[in-house]
């Protein structure tokens, strides 16, 4: 009994981490370049795009979940992919939720750094790509914070993964949907215990990233 309990628990925690970390990595790959281009690029519609990305930070997870459900449902346009009720659908949902956060943070940081180092880069006659890369490297600590904020969003949301994942035991059940389920069964102690684990995880990840950040800010030419 206890053995299955711990195995189930480990499964749920592992899936939570896989889905949310997967979503954050995917989101970072897309959002960091997007944010940097928004910061340095000069093109039409940039202002509107910046506004849109900022506003998207407030996207309600249930709405994202519902939209993806309609898209991934067998009766929907992407139905044949068979993505509904899979961890992949959950990763996609959380990626959409995390992209605006990382993109916004990135844009703000890179814009600030560009103002600071702009003259120097101009003197060096750096091209667009070079400037972008240099500033992103300088922005690393701030980017880490952005990624952490995104991870917090991904790990804690329940609305989207509940709809597109379906909270299927041993397959798409993650920490947040398990907490919802146990609460609805009236197993409040178990629900609280799961909540405690989720909190500890978030805390631990924050601590780890905090340490990495500190190391990054040390002079690199020691």
């Amino acid at each position, binding site marked *: 009994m206890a053995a299955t309990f711990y195995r189930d628990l480990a499964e749920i925690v592992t899936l939570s981490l*896989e889905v949310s970390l997967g979503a954050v990595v995917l989101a970072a790959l897309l959002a960091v370049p997007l944010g940097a281009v928004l910061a340095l690029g000069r093109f039409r519609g940039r202002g509107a795009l910046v506004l849109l990305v900022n506003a998207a930070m407030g996207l309600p997870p249930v709405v994202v979940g519902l939209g993806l459900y309609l898209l991934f449902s067998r*009766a929907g346009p992407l139905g044949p992919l068979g993505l509904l009720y899979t*961890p992949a659908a959950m990763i996609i949902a959380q990626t959409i939720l995390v992209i605006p956060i990382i993109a916004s943070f990135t844009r703000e940081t890179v814009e600030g750094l560009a103002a600071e180092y702009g003259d120097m880069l101009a003197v060096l006659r750096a091209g667009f790509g070079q400037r972008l890369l240099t500033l992103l490297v300088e922005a690393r600590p701030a980017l880490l914070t952005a990624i952490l904020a995104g991870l917090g969003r991904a790990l804690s949301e329940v609305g989207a993964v509940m709809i597109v994942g379906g909270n299927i*035991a041993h397959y798409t059940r993650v920490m947040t949907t398990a907490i919802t389920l146990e609460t609805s069964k*009236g197993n409040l102690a178990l629900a609280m215990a799961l909540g405690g684990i989720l909190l500890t995880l978030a805390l631990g990840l924050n601590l780890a990233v905090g340490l990495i950040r500190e190391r990054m800010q040390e002079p690199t030419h020691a």
Partner: protein
Amino acid sequence: MKIRSALARWCPALVRPLLALALAAGAVLAGTGAGAGTLIVQSTTSTRNSGLYDHILPAFEKDTGIKVKVVAVGTGQALKNAARCDGDVLVVHAKPDEEAFVAKGHGIRRHPLMHNDFVIVGPRDDPADVRHARSAADALTRIAKAGAPFVSRGDESGTHKKEKALWKAAGLDPSAASGGWYREAGAGMGATLNMAAGMGAYTLSDRGTWLAFNNRGDLALLFAGDPALYNPYGLIIVNPAHCPNVNIEDARVFRDWLLSEKGQRLIGSYRVHSEQLFFPDALPQKDGNGKDKAE
């Protein structure tokens, strides 16, 4: 050296997301090959929350090697999801809606699977004196007369549909009191029971969820036994003519297994606090000619 140690520090953090990505890619690929050996069951919540699936599915998976994925939502949503082809089999409890689902060609046919009953639960001190009601309709009339708080599921689930039918039978329309003593939760059975326990309200519950529910607080079972509270569960295979993606072979295996003597006995053997939660409706009858009524 610095780079090396940084790599060592970053590697574990990178491995998991990469695994997840690989997993995602795998899931996409597997998805296009459409679930041989896995079944999606669109189900009512009571069968999951009461623990029935945990009791029967391991035996089924062991017998057949078919993996069952249960998506537990309200009966109304389960029927809608299945009509959109997002499932292979339905296990729900709203007979008129199930028959309509089949009549529309969305399902092949409805098989009676099992039954239990609905119960009216409420605060132990019972201000509306539901304990002495003569019928379910009378119980609701007493609650309405007393203006005692009543939490409705409000989610088009099987239980909600039953509750609405009971109000109708009592000649009452509680929606006028919505926001007053009549409170529509828009939530599953367990969440609704939590609310009822929290505000000392009455509510209608299926017996299975009630028996398995662990946060009763001051709630007690106050009324049961009226034939109007009968709660039959049906099983329907989604019609492949409507949804070509239906895993029809495995769905048939699942149906036949659940309706077989073994499946039915397993359903009947499920106990919570030593009480039987579900009563099989398709037990093969061993009467003379040995014909069973399962099919």
